[in-house]
């Protein structure tokens, strides 16, 4: 009985070590699990049949290639596991997912449970208007109707700006992004405030992409990063070093262009969102600062 307990305890200790040391786990099992998203814009999405692609997915594949070299493995089996906004943090925490490559904002609340690699994409909340509207800044929205999507942080952000700047606009909430864009397209709203990537995607998919423009101040900045387990400095360093290598060689800019300015599968449409100054800044000065530190500036 005592012996059995000892074996159990030993086994538990081994599992514990394996979980805290991702590199060892990868080496021992010859496989790694990548957390991906079903539809997070061009960052991470599915083509169906268990195939996952996107800017972050491709970065992760390169990172894992480097990890494989570092560990001297002849073969590394990458398993893809779709995650959601609700389960991504717990799945990384409990060891089901080793590296999450989706669209997770690096913030201080999450940093209590997980670690983030250096920021690879910076999302900016912007304003989309009709190209012929003459609107170029938020101040010009005074008295106008502004659309955004129900259930997003942009609603709060928009109201905050309204109060802080003393602008008075009529807010109208679409039930989803497509609906909010339709409000703008049909003239029921004069502007649509949302993440730049979503605005660009909707404009690209519209009937007349030239008829819309993304203008004005950046209302908010959010660093989006690849997520790994907390308290595993060796694996985080391996991931960070690999990403920094991509940044230094300029390869990351090429990857970005491939996913955000060139036609992408499955429909071969373009997102049409060139890298922003904030994103380029994150590549030039690699860092893993949370969103709270961006807000201070």
């Amino acid at each position, binding site marked *: 009985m005592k012996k059995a307990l000892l074996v159990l305890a030993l086994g538990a200790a081994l599992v514990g070590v394996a979980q805290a040391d991702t590199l060892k786990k990868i080496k021992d099992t010859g496989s790694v699990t990548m957390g991906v998203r079903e539809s997070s814009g061009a960052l991470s999405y599915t083509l169906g049949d268990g195939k996952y692609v996107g800017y972050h997915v491709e970065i992760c594949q390169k990172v894992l290639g480097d990890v494989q070299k570092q560990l001297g493995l002849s073969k590394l089996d990458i398993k893809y596991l779709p995650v959601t906004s609700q389960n991504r943090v717990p799945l990384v925490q409990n060891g089901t997912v080793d590296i999450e490559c989706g669209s997770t904002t690096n913030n201080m609340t999450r940093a209590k449970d997980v670690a983030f690699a250096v920021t690879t994409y910076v999302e900016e909340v912007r304003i989309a208007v009709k190209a012929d509207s003459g609107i170029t800044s938020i101040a010009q929205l005074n008295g106008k109707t502004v*659309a955004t999507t*129900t*259930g*997003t*942080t942009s*609603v*709060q952000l928009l*109201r*905050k700006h309204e*109060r802080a700047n003393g602008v008075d606009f009529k807010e*109208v*909430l*679409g*039930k989803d992004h497509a*609906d909010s864009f339709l*409000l703008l397209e*049909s003239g*029921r709203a004069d502007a649509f405030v949302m993440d730049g990537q979503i605005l660009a995607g909707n404009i690209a998919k519209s009937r007349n992409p030239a008829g819309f423009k993304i203008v004005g101040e950046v209302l908010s900045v959010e660093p989006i990063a690849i997520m790994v387990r907390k308290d595993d400095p060796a694996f985080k360093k391996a991931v960070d070093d690999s990403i920094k290598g991509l940044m230094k060689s300029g390869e990351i800019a090429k990857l970005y262009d491939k996913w955000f300015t060139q036609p992408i599968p499955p429909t071969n449409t373009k997102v049409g969102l060139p890298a922003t100054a904030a994103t380029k800044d994150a590549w030039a000065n690699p860092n893993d600062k949370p969103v709270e530190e961006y807000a201070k500036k």
Partner: protein
Amino acid sequence: MASWDWQLYCTDMVTEEVAPKCFGAPGYETYLDAMIHGWGWTMFVSVVGLLVALVAGSLIGVLRTVPNRKLAMFGESWTELFRNIPLIVQVFIWYHVVPRLFPVLDLPPTILVVIAIGLFTSARVAEQVKAGILTLPKGQRYAGQALGLTLPQTYRHVLLPMAFRIVIPPLTSESMNIVKNSAVAFAVSVPELAQFALQASEQSSFVQIFLPVTLLYFVSAYAINRVAKGIEWYVRVPGILGAK
């Protein structure tokens, strides 16, 4: 389960600060303020929609029972048209299609939703009013006309007073349905209770937002039920339809 945070309702939706007053503090918009505001829109859409439904529905219901074939046909077509298309599709047609075809009807979204819900429900009201009139023995109509009353007079003084009393119970259900159906207004960006629930719950807690919202819907529909019961009691005719 997380503990229930009463202070949430007194918290500003934008700054997440606690307001000095839970309701109507100047310069603040607490969760409670926003919920009451959303409920106000729900009730506006429901009550005005109900008025449209009752007026149009009664008229159409009566037309369907008159001897004039053309008028009766018009009433029948109206009922079938609005009864056989899903409500959400009708709302979209009024919101997206009608203003494009007829620029005169480019009205505020709230009005378009009221029209859509009102006319959808009018078909159902018409069906009930017609049923109420047909329930009455044919002799009543003939008796009225034998007395020398014109057709409108027969309806006004003989048929409708009893027909409406008969259909109060199904009309009550219809009136309660309109409160619940008003949630489709969310799909065309009317800032009513369902929209509030989706936005506020995303910002705070699903349980703490959806439970009171559910309760508000229940209370609103039940209040209509009680008012209708009161009317039914007030207009009862002793000895008829089970009234004492």
